């Protein structure tokens, strides 16, 4: 059973998906289909990380972030992805998965299933992290009157 999610959310989860599972899912999407058209990339490049600081509420560039971007046409639909790091296979696979769902292909459910697993995995990782951090919170004795 899949939960319907927005395309933006799906792209976020595909960006975070483990490479091996992503490749397996994308390979399934390609099965029996003509080769996808690579509209751009997959290319490794940078995006400038811009932040808004609190003192003047103004923006500045913190630095660059290494990313890989890919745009494909699969099942006559455009798919896009951007993943952190130097990851050309992953970006290409994620763009194919994106198009598969947009085109309501046979494996759309598998892609959504992968996304759901990633989402649960992220929540579990975060909870596990807090579980280890929480004991380092400083607990104060009540101050005497």
């Amino acid at each position, binding site marked *: 059973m899949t939960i319907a999610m927005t395309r933006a959310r799906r792209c976020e989860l595909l960006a975070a998906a483990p490479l091996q599972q992503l490749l397996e899912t994308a390979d399934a999407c390609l099965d029996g289909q003509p080769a996808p058209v*690579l509209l751009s990339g997959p290319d490794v490049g940078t995006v400038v990380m811009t932040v808004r600081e609190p003192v003047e509420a103004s923006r500045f560039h913190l630095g660059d972030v290494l990313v890989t971007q890919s745009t494909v046409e699969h099942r006559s639909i455009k798919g896009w992805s951007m993943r952190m790091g130097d990851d050309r296979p992953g970006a290409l696979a994620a763009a194919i998965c994106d198009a598969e769902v947009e085109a309501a292909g046979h494996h759309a459910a598998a892609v959504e299933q992968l996304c759901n697993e990633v989402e649960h995995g992220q929540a579990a990782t975060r909870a596990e992290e807090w579980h280890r951090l929480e004991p380092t919170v400083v607990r104060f004795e009540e101050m005497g009157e």
Partner: protein
Amino acid sequence: MTVLDVLPDAATAAVLDESSKREVRRAILTAIAIPGYQVPFGSREMPVARGWGSGGLQLTLAIVGQSDIVKVYDQGEDGGVNAANLRRLIRQSEGVNTTTDPREATVIQTRHRVPEDTLQSGQTLVLQVPVPEPLRGVERDMHELRRMHAEGDYSKMWVSLYEDLVRNGVITKTTGYPCLVGGRYVVATTPIPRWDVPPLHQAEFLSLFGAGREKRIYAIPPHTDVEPLTFDDVPFQVEEVSTPCRCGLVVPDGDRQSYQVELPQQDGSSIWACSDTDWCSRQRVGAGLLDPATLTETEVEL
């Protein structure tokens, strides 16, 4: 078919991409249009350290095309380690041919020298500049430095030259002698010796100066005045060259010797050699002292 089957090979990266080249090119055009003005540019990090010719390298990479022939030399020497390294980078990145003969070269990248051969129209001299600011010795505040250039206010520089003359009897500025370009901007002539300043005046060739670490580009177009700062009654002096090269040659066409560097010997004596090794070799071949075959560059691709 899998994702990996359709994944194309990654494009090989150039040292400087098209967009970075365009930025350098835009700065070059402004530099040429305002001779001697230090144009700020977004100097990229190069595979060589800042201070090792990264400014000259960016200029050369930005201007060369496939028909260009590039010479890179350092202290007058094509075999110098840094020159050889830069030459290899340029050749690998842009696929251009290289030479040691400045007469064949269309682009000559240099550190600290101008070729002894008179360069011609259409040739471009690219100078690696460590410190582009000629006034830094007399003023450190960058706001004030910018104002001085903007207003053409070089009085502090003149005062400093005058004090030097009074204190020392001569102007003791050695290399990178300050010059007025096009009657407007004072420039640092990189650390080239004073010997190399006269060839820049009303030259046939274009000179481009690149300071990568300080992120400045400046230029001297052909047919432009380059006047060393000096006083009416104190003529500009190039380095005295009294001893000929150990090659023993007197230059055939007369009064212009070549710039000599000193090679101290164990016994305290010195011998002297032409700093421009390619020029020296050709003179020696001309005099029958050297086998012409040795002039052919035999560098191998790494």
